[in-house]
């Protein structure tokens, strides 16, 4: 088991209604974290977090960074104590 911290911004936080929470994962994978979050928050979160095929993280208008400032993908491993930031990704304007 590993412990992963999730921090939510803007639209993500509106759905979760909490700014941050902790998950205990059996497998150290982003895919398990995503499944736990979508399972907990339902179809609206699923539509925000996952691509239309439901198999990959949504890449459009979203950004998921680990504590080192690296984007994480569905197939990426996680490390005990990692924090993943869920953000709305947009630039310019």
């Amino acid at each position, binding site marked *: 088991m590993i412990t992963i911290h999730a921090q939510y911004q803007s639209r993500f936080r509106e759905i979760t209604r909490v700014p941050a929470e902790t998950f205990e994962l059996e497998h150290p994978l982003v895919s398990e974290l995503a499944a736990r979050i979508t399972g907990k928050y339902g179809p609206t979160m699923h539509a925000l977090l996952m691509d*239309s095929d439901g198999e990959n993280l949504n890449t459009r208008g979203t*950004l998921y*960074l680990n504590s080192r400032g690296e984007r994480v*993908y569905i197939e990426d491993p996680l490390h005990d104590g990692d924090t993943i930031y869920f953000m709305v990704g947009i630039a310019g304007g």
Partner: protein
Amino acid sequence: MQSRLLHVNLTTGELRVEELPHALFERWIGGSGINNWIMWEHFLKHDIHCDPRSPDNIFVFGVGPLAGTGSGSGIKGRITFKSPCYGIFGDSAAGGKFPYMVRFAGFDHIAITGKAPRPVYLYLCDGYADIRDATHLWGKNTAETHTGLNTELGDYPSHVHTLTIGQAGEHQVGIAAVVSDASRIHARGGGGCVMGSKNLKAIAVQGSGGVRVANPAGMLKWSREFRASIDKNEAIYGFKRRGTLGAVEMYQHIGSHFWRNNQGNMFRGDEIRSDNWVKKFHKYSEVCSADCFIACDGRYKIDGSESEKAKKYVGETFRRPEYLTTGSAAGALDIRDWAEVAHWGKVTNDYGIDNQDLSCAISFIMEVHQHGLLSERDIGELFGHAQSLEWGNMEDIETLMADIVFRRNLFGELFHDGPYWGALRYSQRTGRNFMKYSIYGKGGASFTEEMRPFPTWMNNMAVASRGADHLKGIGLIEKFQRRDLSKRYFNGRLEAADLSTPVLKGACTALVENQVALINSYGVCLFHWMLDPAGYAPEEHYGRAFAAVTGIDRTPAELMRDGERICNLEKAFNSRLGLRREHDTICERWMFEPTTEGMYPGRVAADMFETVLDEYYEWRGWERESGLQTASRLESLGLGDVAEVLAADGALARG
């Protein structure tokens, strides 16, 4: 493809309509591509080295082929001109209702030359065009001018939609903007100055026509599928709610703001750093254009309860600021009060001035003062009186803004072309070097975001055709670390999405510039492309819409070549003006001063800059030493005629 170009000579009063041949769309797509070609041809007959404020300059307005077709996406109009503040290629886009109304009035492009003997406005309605007296509008701001024209022209056959200048354009301020329907701003490059130099106060349009498309059923099918893909995308719902202000919280987290003239990269102030203050703009929303499926726009009306300073602005209503308006206020100038940030956006819009250049000019002088480099005598000489230069002080900032808008003192005269020229002029005048405090790329003011951790964006700031620019080669693959796109466009390689290496960053700049050239020529909003639920590739998804509208069926590879051709014409324009590799550069702060905050501390551009620039020239097929285009590459793009002009001007590489 039907298309009409209206030629307007303000010196003679001549109006002439030209039917644009279909072949022009085959070569230049439309929108910015055709605008560029109109300007290029103009300067084959007129001196390209002319003063941009002279009657010899040209002001072109154009829409893309998707405008007014019900595509749900083709909402952008574009103005193109020789820039008065940077002296090079200039253009700028804005959305809203004005662009497609120009088409409904029977025109696609307008090319304005000469200078009217007195203030005038151009009126268009259902195929008719007229130059009318605007003496009664001179001196009014953009909102008053828009209202005045609506009152004057009435509601038949449609509402009146306008392009106007404010006092900044009238005073030929180099960074003056053009404002569409009193709220959407063609900000960069000084288009408002060009209009002002021509005594052109406004363009007003009414129309009841439509747009003929080659394949109506195909267009409708594309449009329905696009709408459906948007409606089921939750990320786009988030964007509808916040617009570009959705970036505020993310940028605060990664350290991508532009604080106090980019001395830092995070906002200060308890509230303005968070999403809470963004939500205060959720009073009500509106659709920016009848032809936009995303509709990210919003409005606010201040009731006095929102913040400490809000009581001062009770009743003020305007568009919710975009991210960069917020970045310029809360970042560059360190304004921390919600109502004052909103007010900054409204005032700059009313005056008709680019708030990016303006904030960088004001924050430059504030930083010079912060370091104790301005004596009382210096301040007296610059402003004509004692002047406080306190970060975040709205009263000071409004005074400095008016100094520039009305060019009413030495500060206004020195800095009305933006921070680069202002700093250079002030350094020359005083014999002291202040350039290290000027934030610019290629002579153009920065846009108010931190870019040092992002090598593609740093390269954009140096090579963009219109000076420091985040829109012509927007570095999303890198900033959002899109490994999927890096793999897709670079044969499975990942480096374009990796911030730690210069590899593929120059290539990525060239790739995205070509894509953005396509988007701008279709007339599509960049945010539709960035968020595009149907796929990131403008050469694929929007290429199908382009085919349905024009009947021009291109492969994605052919469309990418079209985008490259458009970029090369902008480059050729600047090469004719004498720009070479040494002009593709950025300011000292970005190059050598490391970032200190956020997720990416310790970054300087110099670590990768020259390597990325070399790679950019290589991918472009341009000569590395001079930065000039080669005849062989231009000919391969069908630009042999352009190569001949460059050769005659001594602006073509020998290779």
